[in-house]
């Protein structure tokens, strides 16, 4: 039923799919022209110049559609407004999306294939968590789909920013974002003190964040010890209430997905023993939108965590910054 619009067996005839492909395409032209006859070789410097210029000035995509919250946010941060054709519906949800206000200016999609075809994108941004059938069909129909890997540490975040920026032809903007992120993290690191009080994340349904999570990374950067990581928990996992109490955390953090709602899972956070173990210090809530996706907003989380640190806790903690 679906057919490739262009025969893929002859790559040189294809319009290059991505920026890196385009570079290879230009390089092929260079080699080809060098191996050609003398008259062509005479123009070699000119061809070389043209190839490089066209590679750099290669038209950035002008109708970018994102179908995942994580790519939505990077797209909104990096792209020129006229490049953005659509973002996913979740980008508008203020608890999940750091960019909810700017997302409101664009059409939303629900990652449904017919809807996406109607948007006629020249680049579709997705993530590893995007529905695979949608990605497969889009690629099958010849659309360019780029997938953002999930970030579980700072290096991943920097890599994703650079990657998205390169796709959008916004390299400078990407570098500026990374620089600002590093600057803010350095400012937090500069206030570091000797003591590292113990903490852990305790979420609805008794989940916690161990090694290889953004919460772990942010806790360490803000000068805390992450007891869940020390207990050998990797990624997100359940921590038993008794185990938590025996670990004796000095501070509990949480990151409610939807504050102000009620469920059995959320009621677990009101267990009186939790209050006792931290000597009455309430669980500090760090907004979930800072790390549901990796991005420069991790700096907000690190600053909030550092603000809750007993060494400089005079500043109110868990505040939201917009």
């Amino acid at each position, binding site marked *: 039923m679906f057919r490739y619009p262009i025969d893929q067996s002859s790559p040189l005839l294809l319009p290059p799919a991505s920026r890196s492909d385009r570079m290879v395409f230009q390089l092929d032209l260079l080699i080809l022209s060098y191996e050609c006859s003398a008259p062509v070789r005479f123009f070699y410097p000119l061809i070389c110049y043209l190839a490089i210029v066209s590679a750099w000035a290669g038209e950035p995509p002008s109708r970018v559609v994102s179908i995942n919250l994580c790519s939505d946010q990077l797209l909104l941060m990096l792209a020129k407004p006229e490049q953005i054709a659509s973002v996913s519906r979740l980008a508008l949800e203020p608890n999940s999306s750091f960019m909810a206000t700017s997302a409101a200016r664009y059409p939303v999609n629900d990652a449904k294939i017919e809807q996406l075809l109607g948007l006629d994108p020249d680049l579709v941004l997705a993530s590893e968590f995007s529905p695979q059938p949608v990605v497969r069909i889009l690629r099958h129909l010849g659309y360019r789909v780029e997938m953002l890997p999930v970030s579980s540490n700072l290096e991943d975040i920097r890599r994703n920013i650079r990657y998205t920026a390169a796709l959008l032809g916004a390299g400078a903007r990407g570098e500026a974002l990374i620089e600002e992120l590093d600057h803010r993290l350095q400012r937090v690191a500069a206030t570091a003190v000797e003591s590292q009080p113990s903490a852990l994340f305790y979420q609805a349904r008794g989940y916690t964040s161990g090694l290889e999570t953004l919460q772990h990374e942010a806790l360490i950067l803000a000068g805390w010890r992450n007891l869940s990581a020390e207990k050998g928990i990797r990624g997100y996992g359940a921590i038993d209430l008794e185990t938590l109490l025996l670990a004796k955390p000095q501070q509990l953090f949480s990151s409610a997905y939807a504050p102000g709602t*009620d469920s*059995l899972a959320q009621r*677990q956070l*009101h267990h009186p023993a939790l209050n*006792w173990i931290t000597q009455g210090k309430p669980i500090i809530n760090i907004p979930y939108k800072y790390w549901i996706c990796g991005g420069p907003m991790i700096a907000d989380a690190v600053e909030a965590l550092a603000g809750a640190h007993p060494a400089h806790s005079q500043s109110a903690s868990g505040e939201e910054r917009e």
Partner: protein
Amino acid sequence: MRRSGASGETDHQARLIAIMTAVLVCLFVLSHFIGSNPIPVLAAVMDATGDTQSVIAVILTEVRLPRALIALFAGATLGLCGAAMQGLLRNPLASPGLVGSSSGAALGAALALYSGFAASFWLALPAGGIIGSLLATLLVYTLAGGSAGTATLILAGVAVNSIALALISLLINLAPSPYAVREIVLWMLGSIANQSMKEFWFLLPGTLLGWALLAGTGRSLDALTLGEETAYTLGVNLSRLRWRIFIAVALAVGSAVSITGAIGFIGLVTPHLLRPLVAFQPGRLLPASALGGAILLLCADIGVRLFPAGTEIKVGVLTSLVGAPFFLFLILRSRRWQT
């Protein structure tokens, strides 16, 4: 029915109750020794009774004690209400789980919880459970008709249980909390993990009230075994008895289920296991079944904590795994009687 003299009967009953109470106390104590981490329980007791508040004391009093108490009260409630309903409806398959009391309670409690009402008003959760339980029980009773046969009652129960389940899943899908989605399992199978004393206090008033209402019904239930007319001549006001038991079940089961979810099969199985030990008398069955229900649920809860799975399984999974085959056995046996 009466096989021995009244005094022998009383002795027998007293001995049964004493033995069951002793077993229950042992299980209740044992329950405090079992958790995800080994703690020195005796030292914890010393700390808890003394003035030093240590972590182990908090684990004992704030984690293990409420769990054991809730298992005890919820189990006793289910056993007692199962016995009362089987006596009232003179139907071996009547039980809170099958005639809709439990699932109605789960629906009512879920409604109170996910609407956010229970967050602002603590009584809303057990009250939701009580009202849901009463409505569902009355609905099944009305659907099945006053003098319903086993099959009709079960069919009406199945229908109301399905409606309650469908409404709970609809509710959970519409709930503003994103965490709600996975909680349908908790409501339909039941769990008593991670409860605190707060939840126990939610559960306590309704269950005690329900128990108190059921306490005096033994004699009427005994009379009812002789048939409705005979019971009437013996001074039993059947419609008052029916209302009293329905309201008592709603109070007790509604409060318990609003905390634990609909734990299956305890209310069905317990009376059947104990009936031969009380000479098939519904009045004597009531206290025995209450103790038996508490014993079964405590056992099941100790069982799930000993279960060598990575994460703890829900207690309702275990009771259903054990209870469902028993239910099948009951059906097969009743079929044999009919043929």
